[in-house]
């Protein structure tokens, strides 16, 4: 029985890993669109107002793009190997926390202020950035206090928010396929749909674990 549960868990983990690698590949492809640095490639094609009027926009945007791909990978490794490979868990975890607190979340908040889709989207992205910073920071401070369970829960929250990079884009593909909405109408929806359900799901998992 124990062996069965164990093998079930391994299969589940395998599926999770493969799914992540697939989507990480997509994210990597998006990131590589920005190599070499260009001021009017991909998403920046519709951001020329900001690029030309705010000299700090482009550098901060690139900080976000280049740092976040590493945060996504480091975070996955840390969460995936939460019980074994202690060294790898700690190493990747430190990278994750360091990148987010210093680069990804702060730059994310800044770009959020100038997000497409009007106030509805801006509020969402800024809030997402603030929560990402806070949850990551809390998780870090809990482990400093050797409070493993709280560390774990806060890191789940943090990484659920990090994964919004993927879920947001997934929702976009689905909703565009189904309804063909105008680009900024969909943008307002996915701005929230990208992370709120993730967070709710994680809160549910945390509640389940606590019981």
């Amino acid at each position, binding site marked *: 029985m124990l062996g069965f549960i164990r093998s079930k868990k391994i299969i589940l983990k395998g599926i999770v890993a493969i799914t992540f690698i697939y989507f990480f590949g997509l994210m990597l492809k998006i990131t590589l669109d920005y190599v070499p640095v260009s001021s009017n490639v991909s998403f920046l094609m519709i951001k020329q107002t900001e690029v030309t009027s705010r000299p700090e926009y482009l550098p901060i945007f690139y900080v976000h793009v280049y740092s976040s791909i590493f945060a996504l990978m480091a975070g996955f490794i840390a969460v995936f190997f939460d019980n074994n490979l202690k060294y790898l868990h700690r190493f990747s975890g430190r990278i994750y926390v360091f990148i987010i607190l210093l680069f990804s979340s702060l730059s994310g908040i800044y770009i959020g202020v100038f997000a497409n889709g009007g106030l509805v989207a801006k509020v969402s992205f800024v809030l997402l950035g603030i929560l990402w910073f806070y949850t990551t920071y809390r998780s870090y401070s809990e482990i400093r206090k050797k409070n493993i369970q709280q560390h774990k829960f806060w890191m789940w929250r943090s990484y659920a928010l990090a994964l919004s990079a993927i879920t947001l884009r997934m929702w976009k593909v689905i909703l565009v396929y189904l309804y063909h909405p105008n*680009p900024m109408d969909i943008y307002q929806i996915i701005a929230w749909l990208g992370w709120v359900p993730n967070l709710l799901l994680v809160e549910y998992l945390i509640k389940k674990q606590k019981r």
Partner: protein
Amino acid sequence: MKSRNLIFASLILSVTLLSCKKGEKSAEKGKSDSLVSKKEVQQEFHKEWYGIYTGDFNSKPKPTEYGNEIEEYKKISVKINRITKDSVYGYSVVNGNQRSFRGILNENTLGLILDEPGNDKSDGRFQLKLKQDSLVGDWIAFNKTSVKSPEKTLKLTRKEFAYNPNFMLSKDQSEDSDYENPVDWNGGKVKKNSFVNDEGKTETYENTFYRSASDNVFKINASKQKLAEKDLKNLRKLDLQIIRNTVFARHGYSFKKETYRQFFENTDWYVPVSNNVDADLTPLEKENVALLARLEKYAEDHYDTFGR
């Protein structure tokens, strides 16, 4: 632009004529100048017939088992630039294919025989008759095997072309269709669906989806207002394409793409007169066109893909 050049040329011509009358000043000019003016000093006739004639350019009806059928429907513009004692000069433009012609006018019958240069496989001869403000007749390809319809009929009426930045597509102009807004009938996407029928078998059927434009194509005028990214970000690709190409339509651009032709050929203001109007765009239009093109590219690459 060509029409402007020609107007300019005829201006020069009338100026030289005037100056000749006034005195013999032009005789003092250099040799090359006198050669040019000799060439240009050719009396022109029937200037009242100069202008643009536009209308149907259809293949000749062919008898089939269902009656006579017309295979090809096209629009043509014929521009008569100059009529001299022995020649008629001008050009025609069909679907962005602009060809000059030269021919003769029979003053008794008011018949025109106009030949295209003949170095293109779709060149041919027009045989037309002038009747007040209309030009009617046919066209026969020089090489009958090289084109789909070697014999065509023309029914043209005279139209004035004038650039006006206020021209827009409007809702009522598409009243002959069931759709109020422009629909791209050429870019349909086929989607396959399947269902299980009464006998438990799976059947598939196909639906074709066409893009339709929003009301923004009636409101946003890229010839008059300076457009910003924020005005256009929420538009779908077709809207952007129409708004951009309306600029070219105002300048009399003859579209190569069927998609764009169908939107403008139903309007009363669109007169295709040239296959290149780039030089005619105002600085404002040039800026807007570049912006619209950029957003079109973004919409094309990113609208339905994994990304933003």
